[in-house]
C-alpha cells in the first residue's frame, strides 16, 4: 500500500541553524500539507500546497518557514533560523482532494522529530 515517507526521522540542530525536512508524498496525490505536534499537544496545521504554490497557511507559518516541491516526488519544509520553540514532530500529509464538500482524506507520514538545542 502506498505511503507517505519522511526523512530524517530525527533531526537535532542548534538554535539559529537552518533545517530542511523532506517528504515523499503518495505518487498520485496533488495536495500536500505540513503539520506539527509539540510534545503533549495537539496536531497543528502549518501549510497546504497545490499546483506549486501555497494554498493556505496558518499564523505559525511565518517568514522563517518555506515549502518547496523541487522535483516530481519530494516536498520539503525549510526552517531558516530555528528557535527552541520549533522543537516538535513535523508531519507531512498528502491527499487527492483539497476541495471542501468532497472526501478530503489526508494520509500522514511517520513524522520527523526536530530537536532544537
Amino acid at each position, binding site marked *: 500500500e502506498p505511503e507517505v515517507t519522511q526523512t530524517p526521522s530525527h533531526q537535532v540542530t542548534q538554535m539559529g541553524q537552518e533545517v530542511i525536512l523532506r517528504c515523499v508524498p503518495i505518487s498520485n496525490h496533488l495536495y500536500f500539507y505540513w503539520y506539527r505536534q509539540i510534545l503533549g499537544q495537539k496536531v497543528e496545521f502549518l501549510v497546504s500546497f497545490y499546483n506549486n504554490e501555497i494554498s493556505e497557511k496558518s499564523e505559525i507559518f511565518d517568514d522563517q518557514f518555506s515549502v518547496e516541491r523541487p522535483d516530481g516526488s519530494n516536498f520539503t519544509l525549510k526552517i531558516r533560523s530555528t528557535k527552541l520553540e520549533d522543537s516538535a514532530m513535523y508531519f507531512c500529509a498528502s491527499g487527492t482532494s483539497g476541495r*471542501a*464538500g468532497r472526501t478530503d482524506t489526508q494520509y500522514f507520514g511517520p513524522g520527523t522529530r526536530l530537536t532544537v538545542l
Partner: protein
Amino acid sequence: TQLLEQSPQFLSIQEGENLTVYCNSSSVFSSLQWYRQEPGEGPVLLVTVVTGGEVKKLKRLTFQFGDARKDSSLHITAAQPGDTGLYLCAGVMASGTYKYIFGTGTRLKVLA
C-alpha cells in the same frame, strides 16, 4: 475559534467493555476523519465520514457523523488491549479551507 473538542480526554477500561468517544464542534465540517496515533508516529487513518448522519463500521469500531455535520462519535465494542492508543478526530471545515482542524485527542488504555 475553530475547535474540535474530544471527550473524554483519558479513558481506562477493562478488556471486553464498550466505550464511546465524542468529537464536538460549533462549526460545520464538510468531512471528518478519525485517526489513531501511536507514540512517536504519525496519525493513521481509520475512517472518513462525509454525509450528515452517516454511520461506518470497521470491525468492532462504529463511527457516526452527526446530522448537522458538527459532531462525530467513535464507539468501540468489546475493547481489547490492542485498541490502546490516542484517537484523534480531524475535520475539514465547510468553508472552502483545505486544512485539517484536529481534535484534542482521547487517550485510551484497555487493561487485560
